Every structure is written in structure tokens, then in C-alpha cells.
């Protein structure tokens, strides 16, 4: 412990013991925060009888029965719908956001601020304010219970975040690099693919991650606009509420499975997460 690398809180030397105590405290808080997740995963491996005990039981024979039962209960279509809505909407978002961010970052148009402002203001429009006409219009054009409706809405939902994020990443490309490419006679296409793409690849990944998280977890549009055909994973979980109180282990298994993709992706990309959540404001 040298002073050079130690932030303000910890001071070297005689305060070692208090530093140790702080470490223990940090661990305890971390475990408390994680506990509901841990308990969910543990419960998912229980037989139903072990899920309802007072006091809660930690000693039980683990089983994969619940996960097997999920797929017998028809979980697949829900997962496929979620996968489709998430993937396609994320690709669409990137296809729309990258050119827009390029226009805003590299060759700023007049009123760049107004445009950025508009994008972000759509994000702040409460969804409840648009759900009624969306429902009515979707009903009239036969787009209710259609996974493409979700794709369109998720694209609109994530587009502003993506534009802001990609703009902040594109702005980091030094102007000299682009000038050099232009001097070497690179076409726009070449500049985009050979020069810029490699430089913003991590930013692109971070943007995609944020879009995936929000699309995969989205519930409000899904519950109001889908029924049997296009229902996504959150609706599969809600299906357990009717029999709620009876099948905790099964419910926990479903919740675990539903959360797994995003949790894994978020764990892997922790650094990008911060930047994405602040829409590029924090580096």
C-alpha cells in the first residue's frame, strides 16, 4: 500500500485495520445486494416442496426438473420471439443510428443541437402517452400480436440512446486521421469501413449491448400489444402469476433463464455499461 495509488478514503499505515473493516463491509453489502439473485438461482434447482419451508432451507437435493418442465410448458416460442425482437430491433437501431451519428459528429449539420435535443426528447416522452394510439392504430392495420410491431417500437425506444452514444464515440476519432485518409484519396466507403469502423468497434459493441438490455427486458409494450403469437419472455414469466404462491421453484427457474442472457452480457461488458447508461456522457 503506497500512497501514490491510494484514493482519498484509505490512508496507509496505522489505519490498516479500519481498511480491513471497510473491505469486510463492502463484501457484506455486495452479498446482500446479490442475495435475491442468488436465492432465485438456488430456488430454481429445488423441488417445489423444498421451495416452501419455514425457515428457508439451504439443504436440499438439487434437481434440473424445473428447467425441463419449463420447456415442456412451452417456453420456446417466448424465447424465440424475444430473441427475434431484440436482435432485429438492435440491428435496425444501429443501421439508423450510425449514419445519423456520423452526420452529427464528423460533419456537423446546422442545428446539430436541435436534432440531438429532439432525439433525446423522444426518449423522455412517457410511453403511456403514446400507447393508446399505438394500440388503436396497430389494431386497425392488423399489427396487434405481431412481433414486427415490437421490433418497430423497440427500435424507436433505443434509437435516441444509440444516436447519442455513437456520436460520442465517433467524436473521439481525431480529425487528423480522417484528413489523412482524405489526403490518401480514400473514398467515403473506404474511410468508413477501413478507418472508422475499426476505431469505433468497441463503441458499436457497447451501443448494441445497451439496446439488447432494454429490448430484452421490455414489458410494457409487450403486455399491451401481444397475446399468444408474439408474446415475449417477460409475458412467459407473468404467466406464473395466476398460480403464484404454488410454483416458486418453477417460477425461479423461469426467472433465472429469462435473466441469464442479459446478466452474462452485462458482466462481460461492465466497462461499456457505464458509458452506455449515461448515454455516452461518462467515459
Amino acid at each position, binding site marked *: 500500500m503506497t500512497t501514490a495509488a491510494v484514493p482519498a478514503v484509505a490512508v496507509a499505515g496505522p489505519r490498516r485495520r479500519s481498511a480491513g473493516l471497510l473491505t469486510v463491509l463492502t463484501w457484506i453489502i455486495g452479498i446482500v*445486494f446479490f442475495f*435475491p439473485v442468488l436465492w432465485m438461482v438456488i430456488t430454481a434447482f429445488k423441488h417445489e416442496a423444498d421451495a416452501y419451508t419455514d425457515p428457508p432451507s439451504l439443504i436440499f437435493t438439487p434437481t434440473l426438473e424445473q428447467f425441463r418442465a419449463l420447456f415442456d410448458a412451452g417456453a420456446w416460442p417466448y424465447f424465440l420471439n424475444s430473441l427475434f425482437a431484440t436482435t432485429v430491433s438492435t440491428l435496425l437501431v444501429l443501421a439508423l443510428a450510425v449514419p445519423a451519428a456520423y452526420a452529427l459528429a464528423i460533419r456537423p449539420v446546422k442545428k446539430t443541437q436541435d436534432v440531438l435535443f429532439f432525439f433525446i*426528447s423522444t*426518449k423522455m416522452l*412517457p410511453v403511456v402517452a403514446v400507447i393508446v394510439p*399505438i394500440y388503436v392504430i396497430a389494431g386497425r392495420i392488423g399489427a396487434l400480436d405481431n412481433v414486427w410491431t415490437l421490433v418497430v417500437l423497440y*427500435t424507436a425506444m433505443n434509437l435516441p440512446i444509440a444516436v447519442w452514444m455513437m456520436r460520442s464515440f465517433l467524436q473521439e476519432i481525431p480529425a487528423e486521421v480522417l484528413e489523412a485518409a482524405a489526403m490518401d484519396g480514400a473514398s467515403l466507403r473506404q474511410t468508413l469501413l477501413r478507418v472508422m469502423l475499426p476505431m469505433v468497434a468497441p463503441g458499436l459493441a457497447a451501443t448494441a449491448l445497451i439496446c439488447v438490455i432494454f429490448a430484452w427486458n421490455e*414489458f410494457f409494450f409487450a403486455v399491451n400489444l401481444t397475446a399468444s403469437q408474439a408474446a415475449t419472455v417477460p409475458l412467459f414469466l407473468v404467466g406464473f402469476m395466476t398460480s403464484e404462491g404454488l410454483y416458486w421453484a418453477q417460477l425461479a427457474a423461469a426467472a433465472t433463464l429469462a435473466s441469464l442472457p442479459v*446478466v452474462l452480457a452485462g*458482466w462481460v461488458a461492465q466497462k461499456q455499461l457505464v458509458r452506455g447508461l449515461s448515454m455516452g456522457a461518462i467515459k
Partner: protein
Amino acid sequence: MSTDVATTAVPPRPAVPAREPVRSARREGWRRRAPLLPALVFAILVTQIPFLVTLWYSLNSWNLVRPGSERFVGLSNYADVFADRVFRQAALNTIVITAGCVIVAMLLGVALALLLDRRFVGRSVVRTLIITPFLIMPVAGALVWKTTMLDPLFGIVNFVLSPFGAGDYDWTSSAPLISVIAALVWQWTPFMALLVLAGLQSQGRDVLEAAQVDGAGAARTFRSITLPHLRRYIELGVLLGAIYVVNTFDQIYIMTQGGPGTASSNLPFYIYQRAFLGFDVGQAAAMGVVVVIGTVVIATLALRLLFRSFVQEDR
């Protein structure tokens, strides 16, 4: 076209006068604008048009289950909305839930960030544990809280509190708002902690060392240097958090269904009930418009801040 786009919020500074193109530059201008258009058109089509339709619906009386009941009624839906006791309660609950969640999550977030901004064994593991609640699907998290955590008989919370004589307290029906806020705080604390931690780590080491050399204690350093530095990050977290939490729907739908009665109903949930259980399009639309007006106030503040954060760094 871009002069009338910001329908949901007021720009922080007056827009540049709209038409002043030098003719020779006009073509170049369009070439620059072209990549922007698909995204702009898409966003306008999918977000602004439905909102205009909402405005129109809010001036009509229309029940979806009675076809042909649609007729223009002017502002009477708004009069009904403001006279509606449940709407006022839902508005109050929205404020309580948003403020409660954001404030508690931010306080916890700052504390956690300070703890995480030290070198210790397993730091990245603890950070991973702490961000997980934010990644869990909100519907899944809400179900876990309602069942295994808060259940009166078999829930962990009552089990942990039993030495203190908690008994079989039924959290979600006896303290619905607190239950919902607890689940929300659990979800949003990681978000706040991550933003504040990023702020702490962007602090200049030299400043902190200088403070130490000058003999400032840890508390003094925190108050005079760290806290002012963190201010921007805290503001950003509070405002971004508020924008999301105002729209809370999942936790209420799952944990309390707005109940008992309407005790824990917030505006999104109440509008959902009026629109999709009551099929009252006019009233639901009017409430939606009121929510937007309320949000504009918060949003304007948030945007100003975001712009300050971005623009200052950019230029």
C-alpha cells in the same frame, strides 16, 4: 423540418434562425443531412405522430367496447381527470415512488461507490455482484421480490426480521409503496453506484495528493474536493434515473397491481388500467397528455444538464 421537432421539450437556448442558406452551399448541406434523415423520419413517425393522435383522442369521448361512441367533447376529459381522486392519488404516488427510489438509490450508490473506489481483495467480484440487480429482467426481479423475498409466510425478509419480532407481516399488501420502492431501489442502486464510481475514478490524483500534502483529512478532502467534483455525476444519475423511474410499470403490475385498492397505483399503471381494462380512450389519452406536460418540466432540466456535460467536453 427541424424547427418544429422538439414538441416534447423546450430547447435550452434559442434556435439558430431557420433559413439562411447560401445557395451554393445548399447541395453540400443536403449531402451532409442525408445520413441523418432516415433516423429522424423514423423517430418522428413512431413517436411524434402517435403523440399528436393522443392529443386528438384526449379531446374526444370514446370507449373502445362501444363502437361508434366517438365524439368530440373538447376539454371535458381534462376536467374529469383533474376531478378524479384516483388520478390525483396516482400522481402523488408517482412522485413518492420516483423521489423515494431516486434519493435512496443515490445515497446508497454514493456510499457503495466510495467503498468500491478502494483497492481490496476481490474488488471486481464485488462490483460484479453489485451491478447484477440492474441487469436482472425487471419482471423477473419483481416476481422474486414478491414471492421468495416478501412472502409473509415463506419469504426471506420476514425470516431475517423474525428475531426482531416481525412475524408474518404481509409486505405487499400492508406496505405496498414501500415494497415497490424497495424493489426499485434494489434495481437502481447499481446504476447510481456505477455513475458515481466513474466520477470518483475520473478525479485528478494530483489534486488529492496536494490536499494530503496540505494536511487535509479524509473528511475535509471529501467535502471540499470530491463532493464538488461528483456533483455533475450525481445530478446526471438523479435525472436519468428519474426519467426511467417515473415510467415504472413492471414492478407495480407484478407486485401489487396498484393495490390494495389504488394505494400503490402510479400514473403509468392507472393509465394502463383506464385504457386496457376500462377501454376509456379519451380519459387515458388526457391523462397521458398531463403526464407529458409534467415530464417536460423534469426533462428540460435533465436536457440542460446533459447538454452541459456533453458540450463542455466536446468543445
